[in-house]
């Protein structure tokens, strides 16, 4: 019955264990499990296509920094240590200086990320062509679009959950 009894990422990152907001979420267990399932699918080391896990983490970290959402940004930044991402790349993302990135492919992906985070209506057909020109295949553009769109969902859900938890329980 209780398919989402295991705390998911947002529970662990933001909420008091067994607290009122975590209990509210349990009443919408399908949302909890699909939110976690989306996260696990997008950061699966064996995800089909050619976006490396490192690239996906850099996109997620950058999107969370732009939002900004500090806890999720830290969450996505952390595994980049293990992947030994080069310091120049990390510094460029950290200070939002995409022109300093060495890789045109990463520059194109993070430029697309910036557009979708800041003002998604500006992401037009030309923006997709720029990704294809940078070497992404169709499946990779779909993955990237889904990833940025998911992060846009996740940061808003996270902000809402934290706000709800910060309020005193309703009388």
């Amino acid at each position, binding site marked *: 019955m209780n398919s989402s009894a295991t705390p998911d990422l947002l529970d662990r990152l933001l909420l008091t264990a067994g607290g009122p907001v975590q209990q509210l979420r349990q009443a*919408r267990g399908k949302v909890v499990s699909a939110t976690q399932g989306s996260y696990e699918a997008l950061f699966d080391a064996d*995800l089909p296509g050619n976006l490396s896990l490192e690239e996906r983490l850099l996109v997620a970290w950058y999107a969370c920094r732009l939002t900004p959402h500090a806890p999720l940004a830290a969450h996505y930044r952390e595994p980049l240590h293990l992947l030994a991402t080069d310091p120049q790349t990390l510094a460029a993302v950290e200070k939002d200086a995409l022109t300093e990135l060495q890789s045109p492919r990463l520059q194109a992906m993070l430029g697309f990320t910036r557009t979708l985070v800041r003002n998604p209506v500006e992401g037009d057909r030309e923006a997709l062509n720029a990704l294809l020109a940078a070497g992404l295949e169709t499946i990779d553009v*779909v*993955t990237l679009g889904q990833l940025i769109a998911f992060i*846009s*969902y996740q940061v808003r859900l996270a902000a809402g959950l934290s706000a*709800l938890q910060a*309020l005193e329980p309703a009388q």
Partner: protein
Amino acid sequence: MSESLNIQGFTNRTLGWKAWLPILDPAQASPAQQAVLEESHPQAKVSQYYLTLIHQPEVLRQRSLAFNAIMYAPGGLSRAERELASAVVSRINQCVFCASVHAQRFEQLAKRNDAIAQVFADPHTAGTTPREQAIVQFAIDLTLAPGDLPPERLLALREQGLNDGEILDLIHAIAIFAWANRLMLNLGEPVWP
């Protein structure tokens, strides 16, 4: 059916959607892709939107599970109010296609489209009741500034009678359209009849 709305480039008419990327030929879909299409939407096999997203089937599967659980689950916030929030987010993000779909859904559920006409004209002043106004304002705030959401912002919702379960449903409905709008806006475009 009430009158059609055509306000500020937004409409409640039925629009099409055209993909910018090559779509999967349904005849070439693997059994796993077939299954995900079938559980995502009744029309998925003839929709360029789903036939784009099916290039990455497990992500589409989880997205559809989240979307359907958020928008259609019984209890909690009324489905009409979830659709109102979806329409507001789509209006703010300027997703004309999403706005048209969820304008229609609101109208089917609420049997009126006055609130949608207001959202299309000027979302910042929209809402036919103080409760609708609070829902609309919260949808705008969480859409535009998720990095700056003072908890007190939720008090306006409680003051209008929403309990915390309904507030969670509202947060879900707003957040899932941050996702949906970005797919519809950035992987293709609406087609007008």
